[in-house]
């Protein structure tokens, strides 16, 4: 997917300013930045939930909008789950919503997030971490080729974090690309091919994720953060 000169204003407030971003097939991008930098808004633009005020988004290889949406898996801070349905019913619903019926796939994602045991229980009985894991399973259930992940590690315990990390790496090997939003840059660094730093709605830094680049990235990043603190206080 390609974003060209995308700007977004919500209620006349500029949130994104002339973003140029190229997301190649199968590429893992880490989207970093402080709170309010516009990371989540950028994900919403990529998911076509929000339309850019100016600029253009282009779907890969001339995909139609519906086709793009069907290839997309999304983990947002909200889980999108129905709490009076069971975990299984939730996944079944979302899978059918994408026009698929594949029971094996559901079994598989339940295994992957380690929830097989409780799949017949209502979501309202789940703990917060279980809900988060189910939300991740929900994003994978229609076998998307592109993932948009907004702080997916939030609320997960260490074991679950490891599970998700492994899952992402494995998917990435199979050619699934993702955009990972995180405030923990050290953690995200292991999981990305390229890091993008957002500040006040602008891309201020783009660098490949290697150990070499990490130090210089962190120096700049902390510089931005400091300036941000100056603004607040």
């Amino acid at each position, binding site marked *: 997917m390609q974003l060209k000169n995308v700007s977004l204003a919500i209620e006349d407030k500029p949130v994104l300013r002339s973003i140029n971003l190229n997301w190649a097939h199968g590429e893992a991008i880490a989207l970093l930045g402080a709170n309010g930098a516009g990371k989540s808004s950028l994900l*919403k633009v990529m*998911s*076509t*939930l*929000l*339309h850019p005020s100016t600029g253009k988004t282009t779907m890969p290889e001339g995909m139609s909008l*519906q*086709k793009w*949406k*069907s290839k*997309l898996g*999304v983990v*947002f801070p*909200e*889980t*999108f*789950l*129905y*709490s*009076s*349905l069971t975990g299984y*019913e939730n996944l079944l*619903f*979302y899978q*059918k*919503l*994408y*026009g698929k019926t594949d029971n094996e796939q559901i079994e598989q994602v339940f295994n992957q997030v380690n929830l097989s045991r409780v799949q017949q229980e209502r979501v309202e009985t789940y703990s917060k971490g279980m809900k988060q894991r189910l939300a991740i399973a*929900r994003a994978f259930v229609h076998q998307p080729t592109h993932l948009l992940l907004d702080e997916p590690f939030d609320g997960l315990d260490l074991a679950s974090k490891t599970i998700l990390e492994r899952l992402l790496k494995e998917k990435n090997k199979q050619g699934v690309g993702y955009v990972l939003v995180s405030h923990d840059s050290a953690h995200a660094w292991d999981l990305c091919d390229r890091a993008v730093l957002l500040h006040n709605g602008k891309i201020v830094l783009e660098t490949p994720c290697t150990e070499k680049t990490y130090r210089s990235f962190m120096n700049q990043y902390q510089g931005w953060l400091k300036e941000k603190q100056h603004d607040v206080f």
Partner: protein
Amino acid sequence: MFFKQSLLILKRDLKIEFRNKSLLLSMIIFAVLFQVFLQIVFDANIEAIKKIAAGVLWIPILLSALLGFSKYGIAERENDALTGLLIAPVDRGAIFLGKLLGNLLFVFIVVIISVPVFFLFLKQPFPESIGLLLFTLFLGSWGFVALGVFFTTLAQSSSITDLLVPIMIFPLAVPLFLAISQLTEMALYPSIVMGQDLWVLLLVGYNILFTIAPLFLFDILLEV
């Protein structure tokens, strides 16, 4: 695909609502209770009822439907599940249709219980024209529910949703109300038959307008 998606949303909503049951039950109880209330305050007897029959029959159904609009599908707002729907490759018209059918089913269940109660309490002789009555009940509920589901979904971001919805839909529904009250009167008391075709035409036209228009408008309006 379109209808499959509508059905999928309908089935999900019904599963959730029947699991909780409280909404449908309270809609039915409210309708019957309100009917009893109306009959008491109007001191309705067979003589007096002629003038107000259509109102006593319809008002409990309409109010019960109105109370249902904002509560039906409330699960969608819980974990922002509506966004989950909007991200999926689903036609937004299909979302409207699914919700319309679900609400309609509930209102029909209310009608099935509340209308016999009306005849029971008022010892009304069996309606002369049962076909016309059923036709009016069907299309009348349909039109009102279509209007209600459309504007309730839109007004969800309002600070006064529950009040704004009736304020919006009642004036718009005046033609519908006139048509159903006239047709109901004709069905109950077959002596008045003037202009029946005209009202039927109005009712059908109104229903078509408010079923088709939202199917297209939903796409423009349901953006985050």
